[in-house]
């Protein structure tokens, strides 16, 4: 068996097409996605404070304190506040020194010079501020009419000073909850599933009647079990290494996939094993042409990816409501869910359940393939007669 593995590795490494594309797929896809969603990961975007001008007026102190007090997770302020007179603020906006001007009248408003995301953030924050200010005013009016002055003071104090905290937001995850990470999980899932094509091709050389090489391999004195398992193992390693290379590449370019490398390796290993086993099984189907096998590989991979929201969104949730069993056995769903279990939920029970399901399906598929291959005789030879 070591003999076959040794030469399967040599063949795989020297087969440039398969080798290079297996490695290029996750890296290229990650690069394209990074270019598409790159700003999400761009520290300049996240960290840099938005310069705003607060016009001099009755609310200037409140607004300045409110905006200056809004801080990011890392402690940096969201806004860089400058108090300017009306003319100075106008010039600063014209020159692009500030993204917006906030008027300091009885009810503040926002003047923006464009429609980019920074200005949208300023508008959103000030709108929120004004809404809260109105609510506080309404409560004050209500309590005054009922003659409960004590309550009024408390509310005024709460509005002006530190509010009393009733709810604490607590993250269930150590890791990032960026929704765009789902697209990068999808790369691994699709990479694992697309390995079915290479594996199906690999099995074809063991099918009697396909080529003269398959004929020679079929009359040799080595069992099909050893040959299939050896070839599978090598191809699995190629896919696994390629996917892990993709993972480290993603980390290198700044995608938030930090954390437990072993857990990620476990998902990729189980996914790659499933993909290769599925390909071996498809390749072992007798009496159908190579073209049909490739069609089955591509079609099933696309369907499974679609059902698991790897191509679009909303399908998986619909399936969860109607036929949840599909999500429990769909390999694409299992792979992407496994990433969620380690990055979002930290649910290792679910993580291991997903991995065991994938490995179990791989073992069953491989066993069926070996059973077919070891008993298979061609009905029609593709060899020249």
């Amino acid at each position: 068996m070591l003999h076959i593995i040794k030469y399967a590795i040599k063949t795989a490494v020297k087969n440039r097409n398969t080798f290079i594309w297996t490695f290029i797929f996750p890296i290229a896809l990650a690069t394209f996605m990074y270019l598409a969603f790159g700003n999400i990961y761009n520290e300049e975007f996240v960290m840099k404070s938005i310069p705003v001008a607060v016009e001099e007026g009755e609310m200037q102190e409140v607004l300045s304190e409110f905006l200056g007090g809004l801080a990011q997770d890392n402690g940096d302020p969201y806004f860089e506040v400058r108090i300017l007179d009306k003319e100075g603020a106008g010039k600063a906006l014209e020159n692009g020194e500030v993204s917006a001007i906030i008027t300091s009248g009885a009810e503040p408003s926002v003047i923006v010079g464009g429609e980019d995301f920074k200005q949208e953030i300023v508008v959103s924050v000030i709108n929120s501020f004004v809404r809260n200010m109105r609510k506080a005013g309404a409560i004050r009016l209500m309590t005054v009419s009922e003659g409960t002055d004590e309550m009024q003071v408390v509310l005024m104090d709460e509005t002006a000073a530190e509010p009393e905290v009733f709810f604490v937001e607590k993250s269930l995850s150590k890791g990032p909850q960026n929704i765009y990470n789902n697209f990068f999980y999808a790369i691994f899932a699709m990479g694992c599933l697309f390995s079915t094509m290479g594996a199906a091709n690999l099995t074809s050389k063991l099918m009697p009647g396909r080529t003269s090489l398959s004929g020679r391999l079929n009359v040799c004195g080595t069992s099909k079990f050893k040959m299939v398992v050896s070839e599978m193992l090598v191809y699995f390693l190629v896919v696994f290494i390629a996917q892990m290379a993709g993972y480290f590449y993603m980390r290198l370019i700044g995608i938030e996939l930090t954390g437990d490398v072993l857990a990620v390796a476990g998902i990729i290993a189980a996914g790659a094993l499933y993909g290769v086993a599925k390909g071996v099984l498809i390749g072992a189907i007798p009496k159908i042409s190579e073209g049909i096998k490739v069609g089955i590989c591509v079609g099933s991979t696309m369907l499974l990816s679609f059902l698991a929201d790897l191509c679009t969104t909303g399908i998986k949730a619909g399936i969860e409501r109607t036929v949840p069993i599909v999500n429990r056995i769909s390999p694409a769903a299992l792979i992407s869910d496994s990433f969620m279990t380690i990055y979002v939920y930290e649910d290792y029970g679910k993580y291991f359940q997903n991995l065991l399901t994938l490995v179990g399906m791989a073992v069953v598929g491989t066993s069926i393939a070996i059973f077919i291959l070891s008993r298979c005789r061609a009905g029609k030879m593709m060899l020249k007669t």
Partner: protein
Amino acid sequence: MEYAIEVSKLVKRYKELLALDHFDMTIREGEIFGLLGPNGSGKTTTINCILSLLKYDKGQIRVFGREIKPSDYELKKQIGVVFQEVAVFDELSVRDNIDYFCGLYVDDKVLRKQYVDEAIKFVGLENYEKFVPGKLSGGLLRRLNIACGIAHKPKLIFFDEPTVAVDPQSRNNILEGIVKLRDAGATIVYTSHYMEEVEQICDRILIMDKGKAVATGTAEELKNMTKNRETITLETDALTDADLEVMKGLPHVYDISYENGVLSLYYSAGRNNLVRVVNYLQEKDIAFTNVHSKVPTLNDVFLEITGKELRD
């Protein structure tokens, strides 16, 4: 008598086409057995059925006394195959290819290295060990194909048209090599539609047509099946009807034709037939030219049995 292969009443259909029609064949151990027939006669189908690569509809096949099955790896270890199409890995070097296929039969590393060295020497690829198949000429590629099929020293070797599209020098090397393998004790099954090759190296020959065995025997035995044993042709313009009557009466002549100045004499047996014809013409002082004596070939045998040429 020990038989390497016994095929009995073998039937194989490809939908409407009857590829093997109750085909019978026995091959003795230690002989080169030739399967001769035109393209589509069923030669490769027979081999693929014997090798358990192809399902067959009826009949029985025994190899070294055992019915061969796809999972009978012990029996398969005694078999080597050289297919018509080159069956090697493009990514591996000459030595690696031979070592890979040999390793599917021989586990012992030391023994395997010895076998691989011997196979490389046997086919004369010593100077090309590190070459990949893509860098080899057609003839060298065929030699590599053979080395991959025989490196593990099988007792039974199938050669399926190994000389197709091979240059004359490589063809001779291949044919000499096959005889050496037989001399070393292997049983060879050799299929070809080149009757000269089959006649040259095979101990016994089976002629196939339309999935049936039409004749079996040594080359001489097969030729003896034909009525014609020699045909003499010569060109002359001076023959009279009287001369033709005399020649028709020469020993063993069973037919004669004289058209456009070409005389043809057909003999059913005999020796020195040509001398008698030449002596007669000299006695009569008749000028002649372009004299040919042709003994029957396996193609003539095939033609006489089936009514068509081997290469039709």
